[in-house]
């Protein structure tokens, strides 16, 4: 039974989100600081260094970590307030079992009961319906060690092929494109290359809000005179300062990149020597864009042709250049094609493997890079190995000490798992660190799917909107309650240090998974004492793969402030910059161009749904908001989703800022305040997606998937926008909080 045990409001009353505003004991508790722990932020893929202050086994504050080279003490608002997730009133402290008869809808149970019931239900379902009828969903806020453990746990303890992770919603399209073009899935540059670029293209990346620390790297390039080109449907805070702004219509990225390649070819702004020596497939890629003229692209993208030509000229004639892209071009049914179109621009001009040259995805999640390498993706084994490749399977079976046949084959992806649950093919679910009820497209569909589960067990530290549907809740660990490693946006593996022990009866995630494996009768494969054992085994499993960690140790990672993979043997210095000397990771050493022609997104506007919708993030919230919607200051900054729209559209709809609008797609509708700004295309609205229920932008989004990477098309939907009754009290918290005459309430 995966229906909610009580009403959603009753569950929120008991389990939150509630807001934590001050450290334990209040602002002036004067606690004696027992220790200050060097670690990293728990949120995005930038993985900024931070020091956590600890008193009485509680995190009570932070101190900038000036000595970590990536961020030199810098933090975004989420990093500054991340410590307030500790000692939080919503923290899950004991195992729970669904019970609609008790207040709160869940009753505390013993660990033995919670684990035994989970194992019994998994066995019952698998006995009746086969091993793949139980699925596991995971997340890449987890460390490398946990990611590795989950990959092994799902395959050898659960015995299911159906394991996937929320990186599927993040940058899998970039990974798939890089792998097929370059033979490896990693941003090819250390971020210290960015300031060395003479031209920077930022495509579909709201750097200032979603990767704020990267801003300073871009500013440093501009300090040297670099030109900045930004492609985005909105004039983001970074775009405001661009030399060339390409304000394209959502879903037309490949038309823009195709036209830029067309202009490069037409003007011979190419590096023929590089193309001949180090690549294959240029002729086909060139033929594919022969008709992608800037004038044609202007009609598709809405970007004036002269700006497209100017962007191409800057990219093609600059000695060095970097192209940074993120979810804005990746969250598409053409996600892989869009990224390959970017890679084509890098290869055509020889902008790889040199200082200040590269095409990089800005990985979104905390361990978005490392998490996808260690084998908890439905098609991969550790070391970024392919689960369908017999040699790769044999290597991993050797490390795991199992027969190759014990490793299941390729499973289905995250969205497909939810669809299989909806269709009744998957009946049991174990999840950790994933909140699909907020993060997957088409929220109503996800909710209907969850209601159909026969059994659902969840490992989490707060009761997320998805976890509210669970039969058993296993209280796991926060980032600061366990140690391990993560691999950052740069491909740099860094050390996460534990600051405190899990509170109450909560346990570390590896402890819970090991107990489950033992109870499933598979303990002989899970004979380890902690994350460092897992790290050593993971390094052996990765050896010889493209993401090779074999030469790393925890001690080295700490001493060297992180190590960039590949690091194939002890003493190897690591590899900050890939592809030096034009050597790519394919067997022939060459990179591949792909012919990319523009095609339409899955859904296009029509008479009934005439407005484009694109979704994204705001700076004060992180992903599905399970943590950041519980921190008061971050909620104050942007309390609820707003519908950004241009004054021309607002005029047609008949609203001004603060009026409420109803936005409707073929999937559903939500009503929210309008935020009328000239910084968005007049044919497009933007809604951030961090909220659940009647505030969920994903109520509107489309379940259409990229055919290769299976990433959903969050960035393009067709909607209608109408005036609704009522108006918001606040449309920009900052203006009332800090700008009006009133003094703010001091926080005591």
């Amino acid at each position, binding site marked *: 039974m995966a229906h909610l045990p009580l009403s959603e409001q009753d569950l929120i009353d008991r389990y939150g989100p509630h807001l934590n505003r001050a450290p334990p004991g209040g602002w002036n508790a004067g606690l004696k600081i027992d220790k200050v722990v060097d670690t990293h932020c728990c949120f995005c893929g930038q993985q900024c260094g931070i020091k956590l202050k600890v008193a009485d086994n509680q995190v009570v504050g932070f101190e900038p970590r*000036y000595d970590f080279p990536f961020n030199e003490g810098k933090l*975004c608002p989420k990093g*500054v307030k991340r410590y307030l997730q500790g000692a939080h009133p919503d923290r899950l402290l004991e195992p729970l079992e669904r019970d609609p008869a008790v207040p709160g809808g869940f009753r505390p149970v013993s660990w033995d009961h919670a684990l035994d019931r989970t194992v019994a239900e998994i066995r019952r379902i698998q006995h009746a319906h086969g091993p793949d009828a139980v699925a596991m969903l995971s997340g890449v806020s987890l460390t490398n060690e946990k990611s590795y453990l989950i990959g092994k746990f799902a395959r050898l303890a659960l015995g299911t092929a159906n394991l996937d992770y929320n990186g599927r919603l993040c940058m899998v399209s970039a990974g798939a494109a890089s792998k097929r073009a370059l033979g490896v899935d990693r941003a090819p540059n250390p971020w210290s290359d960015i300031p060395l670029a003479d031209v920077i293209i930022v495509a579909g990346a709201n750097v200032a809000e979603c990767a704020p620390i990267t801003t300073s790297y871009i500013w440093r390039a501009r*300090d040297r005179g670099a030109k900045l080109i930004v492609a985005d449907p909105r004039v983001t805070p970074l775009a405001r300062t661009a030399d060339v*702004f390409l304000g394209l219509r959502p879903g037309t990225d490949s038309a823009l990149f195709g036209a830029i390649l067309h202009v490069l070819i037409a003007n011979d702004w190419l590096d023929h020597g590089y193309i001949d020596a180090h690549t294959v497939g240029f002729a086909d890629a060139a033929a594919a864009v022969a008709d992608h003229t800037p004038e044609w692209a202007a009609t598709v993208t809405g970007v004036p042709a002269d700006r497209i030509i100017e962007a191409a000229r800057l990219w093609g004639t600059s000695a060095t250049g970097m192209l940074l892209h993120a979810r804005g071009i990746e969250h598409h049914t053409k996600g892989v094609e869009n990224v390959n179109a970017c890679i084509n621009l890098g290869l055509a001009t020889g902008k790889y493997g040199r200082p200040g040259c590269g095409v990089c995805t800005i990985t979104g999640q905390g361990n978005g890079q490392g998490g996808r390498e260690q084998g908890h993706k439905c098609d991969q084994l550790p070391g970024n190995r392919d689960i369908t490749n017999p040699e790769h399977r044999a290597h991993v079976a050797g490390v795991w000490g199992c027969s190759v046949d014990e490793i299941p084959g390729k499973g289905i992806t995250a969205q497909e798992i939810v669809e299989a649950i909806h269709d009744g093919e998957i009946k049991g679910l174990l999840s950790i660190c994933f909140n699909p009820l907020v993060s997957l497209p088409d929220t109503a569909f996800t909710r209907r799917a969850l209601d159909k589960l026969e059994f659902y067990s969840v490992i989490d530290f707060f009761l997320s909107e998805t976890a509210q549907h669970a039969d058993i809740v296993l209280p796991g660990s926060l980032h600061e309650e366990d140690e391990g490693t993560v691999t950052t946006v740069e491909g740099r593996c860094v050390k996460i240090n534990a600051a405190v022990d899990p509170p109450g009866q909560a346990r570390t995630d590896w402890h819970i998974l090991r107990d489950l494996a033992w109870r499933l009768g598979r303990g002989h494969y899970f004979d380890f004492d902690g994350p460092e054992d897992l790290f050593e085994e993971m390094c052996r499993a990765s050896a010889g793969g493209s993401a090779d960690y074999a030469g790393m140790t925890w001690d080295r990672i700490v001493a060297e402030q992180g190590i960039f993979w590949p690091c194939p043997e002890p003493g190897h210095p690591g590899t900050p910059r890939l592809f030096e000397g034009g050597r790519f990771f394919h067997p022939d050493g060459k990179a591949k161009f792909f012919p990319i022609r523009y095609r339409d997104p899955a859904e296009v506007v029509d008479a009934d749904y005439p407005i484009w919708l694109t979704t994204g993030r705001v700076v004060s919230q992180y992903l599905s908001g399970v943590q950041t919607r519980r921190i008061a200051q971050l909620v104050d900054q942007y309390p609820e989703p707003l519908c950004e729209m241009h*004054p*021309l559209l607002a005029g047609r709809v008949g609203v001004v800022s603060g009026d409420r609008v109803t936005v409707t797609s073929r999937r559903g509708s939500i009503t929210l305040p309008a935020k009328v700004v000239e910084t968005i295309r007049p044919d497009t609205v933007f809604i951030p997606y961090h909220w659940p229920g009647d505030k969920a932008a994903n109520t509107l989004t489309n379940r259409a998937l990229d055919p290769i990477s299976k990433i959903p098309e969050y960035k393009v939907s067709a909607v209608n926008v109408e005036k609704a009754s009522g108006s918001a009290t606040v449309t*920009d918290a900052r203006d009332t909080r800090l700008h009006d005459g009133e003094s703010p309430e*001091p926080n005591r």
Partner: protein
Amino acid sequence: MIGGQVFVIDHSRCIGCEACVHACEECGTHRGTSLIHLDHLDRGVSTQTAPTVCMHCEDPTCAKVCPADAIKQNEAGVVQSALKPRCIGCSNCVYACPFGVPRYFPEPDQMMKCDMCFDRTSQGLAPMCASVCPSEALWYGTPEQFAERRPGELINEFRFGNQAVRTHVAVVVDDRHDGPLDVTTMTVRQRWQDDPFGLGVSYTAGSTR
């Protein structure tokens, strides 16, 4: 300059993320109360934002207008919050400050303002806001480090009508001889900024806030 270090504001780099607003609250001298200002110039037309810390005037207007002599500069030149026993909560300083920095707090009936994280700067540490600022719009270091790290010139002299003000905090400009800094109008540096989406008209609806 305070103790050989200069606090620098470069409005053109501000991305409005509010890391400074949240970090200010962590300052040891006024825990739980954020005193920095961060404003949208006009969100209806631009994402441009502007952070304001206390400029720490050499001859502070706030202190000159205080009828209770409650606002003091310390030996390093840092202008401090009103002394609690003296402050009468009249808000003269709030109205008089040319930069709009001081704020009156009904609880605890006192003017409070940025004190340049004196608990940190006196120990050689950067202030909280300049430590965390992701874009280095707020920056703290020696003038030599500034010159080595980035372009732009520093000005610390401002005119407000007939009043000339010299400050310890500096603002970054392209060329200090271009005349007085005006952060309240948006200078269009790139032609596209008049018409970001190529609508063919310069769309100027003004503020929609």
